[in-house]
């Protein structure tokens, strides 16, 4: 059985600058981390491995610096890493990203289960998982927070729908996106970092993919047009009500009246 985890390198800080000319995020290579949701995806993939011994490979799309998160995934317990990297992939929106990942996964060989984090903390769309499943032509379940059972030909998972849980059985090959849950993702192992210090992750460039139609990748393959990108206005003005609790409500009401909100 083969499991593939999709991961992404994201800015480590929420205070990210935006290039006013290009309207893109200015990515600081020194201040990055693995998307927090993807840590849970890795944890879940490695749980599957514990239940039913299998091969867990991590894949990411990004610049060469994104190798760092593939190494981190290997230190956590993944068996191998694949970096989709090519200038032709740059500027991809969710559709192009999902398509590129689908091509990368096909390049990796047979895959029974694809695991994604629910969303990333930079794009925040939570669309890539579902679109990736579409391009791979496989069923998917979102918001999975627990694996109930791993069977020979299917997996039983619990999906968290906020107010209810749903238990679903889904046949392989399939895709799940993982919600944060109370299982803290395992820590990277120093021992594995030494063991894999000479290990090279696989660089997958455009020309290695099955589909070499450039119109499907990067900016060319992205139907999303970003009109404008800007930092949200931060308003740090605040009023502290330092008195006793009982009078908070009336103080607040007075303030709101003053401002003519009520």
């Amino acid at each position: 059985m083969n499991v593939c985890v999709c991961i992404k390198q994201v800015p480590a800080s929420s205070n990210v600058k935006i290039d006013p000319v290009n309207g893109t995020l200015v990515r600081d290579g020194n201040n990055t981390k693995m998307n927090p949701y993807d840590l849970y995806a890795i944890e879940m993939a490695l749980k599957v491995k514990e239940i039913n011994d299998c091969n867990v490979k991590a894949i990411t799309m990004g610049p060469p610096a994104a190798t760092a998160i593939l190494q981190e995934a290997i230190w956590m317990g993944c068996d191998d890493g694949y970096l989709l990297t090519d200038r032709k992939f740059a500027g991809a929106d969710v559709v192009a990203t999902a398509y590129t990942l689908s091509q990368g996964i096909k390049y990796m060989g047979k895959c029974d289960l694809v695991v994604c984090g629910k969303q990333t903390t930079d794009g925040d769309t939570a669309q890539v998982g579902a679109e990736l499943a579409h391009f791979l032509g496989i069923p998917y379940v979102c918001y999975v927070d627990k694996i109930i059972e791993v069977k020979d030909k299917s997996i039983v998972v619990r999906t968290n729908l906020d107010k209810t849980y749903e238990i679903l059985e889904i046949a392989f090959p399939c895709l799940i996106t993982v919600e944060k849950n109370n299982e803290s993702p395992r820590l990277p192992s120093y021992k594995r970092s030494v063991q894999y210090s000479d290990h090279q992750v696989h660089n997958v460039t455009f020309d290695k993919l099955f589909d070499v139609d450039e119109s499907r990748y990067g900016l060319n393959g992205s139907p999303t047009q970003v009109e404008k990108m800007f930092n949200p206005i931060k308003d740090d003005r605040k009023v502290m009500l330092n008195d006793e609790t009982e009078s908070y409500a009336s103080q607040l009401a007075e303030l709101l009246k003053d401002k003519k909100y009520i």
Partner: protein
Amino acid sequence: MYKKIDQNDITYLSTLFDEKYFFTGDDIPEDYSKDELGALVRKPDVLIFVRNANEISSVMKYANDNKIPVVVRGSGTGLVGGCVALEGGIVLCTSKMNKILELDENNLTLTVEPGVLLFEIYQYVESRGYFYAPDPGEKTATIGGNISTNAGGMRAVKYGTTRDWVVGLEVVLPNGKIEQFGKKVVKDSTGYSLKNLIIGSEGTLAVVTKAILKITPKPKETLSLLVPFETREDAIDAVPEIIKAQLNTTAIEFFERNTILLSEEFLGKKFPEKRSDAYILLTFEGHNKQELKFNYSAAAEICIRELKAIDAYIVDTDDRKDSVWKARGAFLEAIKSSTVEIDECDVVVPRSEVAEFIKFTYELQAKYNIRIPSFGHAGDGNLHIYICRDNYTKDEFNSILEQVFDELYERAISVGGLVSGEHGIGYAKKHYMKRQLGDTQIELMNGIKKVFDPNNILNPGKICQ
């Protein structure tokens, strides 16, 4: 000996305070009769939420003139009954004196009122690129409480304790005088250090109304290694070797899987690694990522190659630090919530004796058939040992407790340790301290107390009395 507070006293004192800050009799909430451990309970006659040094001064003057006992408290997170009003009288709560008064970037000091909580100090200084090093587990304690007990915490291995980070204090003496001890200076050879006498005096000498803390630039990079061992013996035996190897750690913490499980249950959040019996948690700092990697790699290599560690897990990101250190910070509460009653022993022993001392607690556990979980700052020799009542009756528990404590303190003293590393003596441990220090030192302490507080009105019955 003391004057029992009567209606005249209440009438007078109530004129000094707004009624919302002044409580008497049944209006005093139960919490103000005890501390975190809860074993010692005594309700004060009057509870006042003071807001500045002048208010405290006027109360102290009145109490001193009338021989009314006064006890000061902050968040009440103490563990030795230090803030319990043994003789009744007045409790002054400083929790409303919670302002951060000044960040002096030229002198690298932070001036605070005593009711500021420890985590508020971290938030304030760290968001501005500075660092306050003492790191006691109880982050909701007030800085006043930390100063009173000379709290230490996890980074004491490298940075020392609260005493090393307080450069000045404003205090109200028992007679109501307001004095400044220490200044915003780095060096001080100016006579006896009255500031240092106040630190660790558990509210028996003066009331702290302002503290000038030392701060430093925040370390650029920090990282912890969670080092698992197959057996607790392997983990314990590794501690002295890690200390000897001079790995430049800021913290060396020891804990067992059982404690992790209690903490998971308490926090409702899984610990990222619990496959091994025992763990040592090491923390490193560096000016840059390369230096940090060099430091932690050297430690990991020694732990794995020479000290039987199974691995060394890297706790590098904020999320990972949170998942590990939050659990570590909750150990006391987790143990407490696992049983009906606990009592604790906070001995400090020479670092070379830590391993043997932890083993000794296991012997006691078997000998008295009682659960004695422990964890602690292995790197500085300060252990937190908890005796859990579980299914024993109160009387049975007390009887076992006495014997276990006797053995623990006797052993600690015999290997060159001290009764308390950071929780203080308060009421609960004074018997053991007296036994260790002997008459001469206790007389010296009482002499100091008498100079500060001739009428013995401040926190009577504590420490050396």
